[in-house]
């Protein structure tokens, strides 16, 4: 194997022999060029994304279940040095897998679960990816971590930096929901609001990452960061009783989560932890930002960028980095990618809340509404065992549903007035 020295590698020679846990190389997904485990994200041969590759590893169900009660129970399958659970961090993961019988009944489906990642420390799945990124930031000597974010990642980076004793610089679009501004700024650190879309923020961060010595979790640390999403898939398999579902519906922003859930299932099969099972992977987008769904329908294997316009701001990435790979996964597994309107997203949020007591953010509404649409279109079999991913907490996107969620009645504080008004409600 030829290992190239990456021009971005500050200490390439020292890192050549490095092994991080069971991780051994970064490999280009496009041309298979390999690099040491440094702060690199794009192949200098072809600009393709770099992905962590591992040495052969032996993991058993017992070794996992006897591990920490967090995502670190899977640390042998992640690019982290041993003992990640003992270092300062938010310890995310092991969020509930909720059997959603009420939702299933309403939708006419047999078996539905919601993987509720709002149960993470900052209430979104981003705590998982940040945890892996911070482990590598620490290893590579960064004192400041940074990110481009649509909000959930901003929360996760600011909070995890505080816990880890690192500085943070977080870049967000200036039109973000007020809740996500507050829930980032409260942790301290520097919050940079950028006048522009997420894609503008992302471009800026790519340039800043090249100029400053910061560990950008989703730029120069992205190969490590992305691996953290595998733990969503690992947990689903473990929590189902060491087996795989028939289908998963994942929100699609960059497309990374969807591809990593699929990767997690394939790794568990390869390790003999679950029986081989054909899980169909479905992607869900908001119509106002649906570049991957459009490419799917058009039969394209590249994704033309769009300018986002949707209430699902956490999914508002018009130029998704992993779009081509998300397309590959859904086509290989027999899934699909569909999109839903903002009104359908609001209906999806309310349906999940009213049937299961789970208040999802807009991305969760996108998933529920897309699942309903795919059922109605006959694309998902109602008998299929389906896991819906809820990646964030509705408390962060109150604006989306505020107009629909007001007091049923407002009454003076007297018994007679209540009785009179309530008769109208219960009639």
């Amino acid at each position: 194997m030829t290992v190239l020295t990456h021009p971005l590698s500050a200490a390439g020679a020292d890192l050549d022999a490095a092994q991080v846990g069971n991780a051994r190389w970064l490999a280009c997904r496009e041309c298979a060029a390999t690099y040491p485990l440094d702060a690199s994200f794009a192949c200098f041969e072809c600009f393709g994304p770099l992905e962590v590759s591992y040495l052969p590893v032996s993991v058993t169900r017992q070794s996992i279940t006897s591990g920490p009660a967090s995502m670190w129970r899977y640390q042998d399958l992640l690019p982290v040095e041993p003992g990640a659970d003992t270092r300062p961090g938010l310890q995310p993961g092991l969020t509930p897998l909720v059997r959603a019988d009420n939702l299933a009944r309403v939708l006419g489906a047999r078996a539905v679960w919601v993987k509720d990642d709002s149960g993470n420390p900052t209430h979104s799945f981003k705590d998982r990816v940040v945890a892996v990124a911070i482990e590598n930031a620490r290893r590579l000597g960064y004192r400041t971590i940074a990110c481009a974010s649509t909000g959930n990642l901003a929360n996760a980076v600011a909070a995890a930096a505080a816990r880890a004793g690192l500085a943070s610089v977080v870049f967000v679009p200036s039109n973000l929901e007020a809740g996500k501004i507050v829930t980032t700024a409260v942790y301290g650190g520097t919050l940079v609001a950028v006048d522009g879309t997420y894609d503008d923020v992302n471009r800026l961060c790519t340039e800043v990452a090249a100029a400053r010595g910061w560990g950008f979790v989703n730029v120069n640390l992205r190969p490590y960061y992305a691996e953290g999403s595998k733990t969503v898939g690992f947990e689903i398999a473990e929590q189902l009783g060491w087996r795989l579902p028939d289908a998963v519906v994942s929100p699609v922003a960059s497309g990374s989560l969807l591809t990593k859930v699929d990767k997690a299932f394939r790794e568990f099969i390869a390790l003999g932890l679950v029986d081989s099972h054909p899980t169909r992977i479905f992607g869900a987008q908001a119509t106002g930002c649906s570049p991957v769904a459009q490419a799917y329908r058009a039969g394209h294997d590249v994704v033309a960028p769009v300018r986002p316009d949707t209430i699902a701001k956490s999914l508002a990435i018009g130029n998704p980095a992993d779009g081509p790979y998300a397309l590959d996964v859904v086509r290989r597994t027999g899934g699909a990618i569909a999109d839903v309107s903002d009104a359908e997203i609001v209906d999806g949020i309310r349906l999940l809340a009213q049937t299961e007591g789970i208040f999802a953010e807009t991305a969760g509404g996108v998933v529920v509404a897309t699942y309903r649409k795919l059922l109605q279109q006959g694309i998902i079999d109602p008998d299929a065992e389906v896991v819906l991913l809820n990646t964030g907490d509705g408390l962060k996107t109150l604006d989306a549903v505020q107009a629909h969620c007001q007091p049923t009645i407002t009454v003076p504080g007297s018994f007679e007035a209540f009785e009179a008004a309530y008769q109208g409600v219960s009639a």
Partner: protein
Amino acid sequence: MSVQVRIPTILRPYSGGAAEVDVQGDTLREVLASLESSCPGISARVLDDAGQLRRFVNLYVDDDDVRFLEGLDTPVRVGAKVSIIPAVAGG
């Protein structure tokens, strides 16, 4: 005046380490051809074998992604800034 091309870190081995290179050209295609004559080998990193923009490269003329414009045929005015930026970040 000419057109200024901002070179990403991973392509600076081709530009002798320069972060910006001044070139000529009325369209993006011509700009890239001029850049290739200043920095031999660089265009093969940006364009694929068919001469199309690689799918993990973003090109901007001033602040606009050329995929929203006319791709490699996008006109480039004198004094414009062209940026080459890896596309695999974010999410």
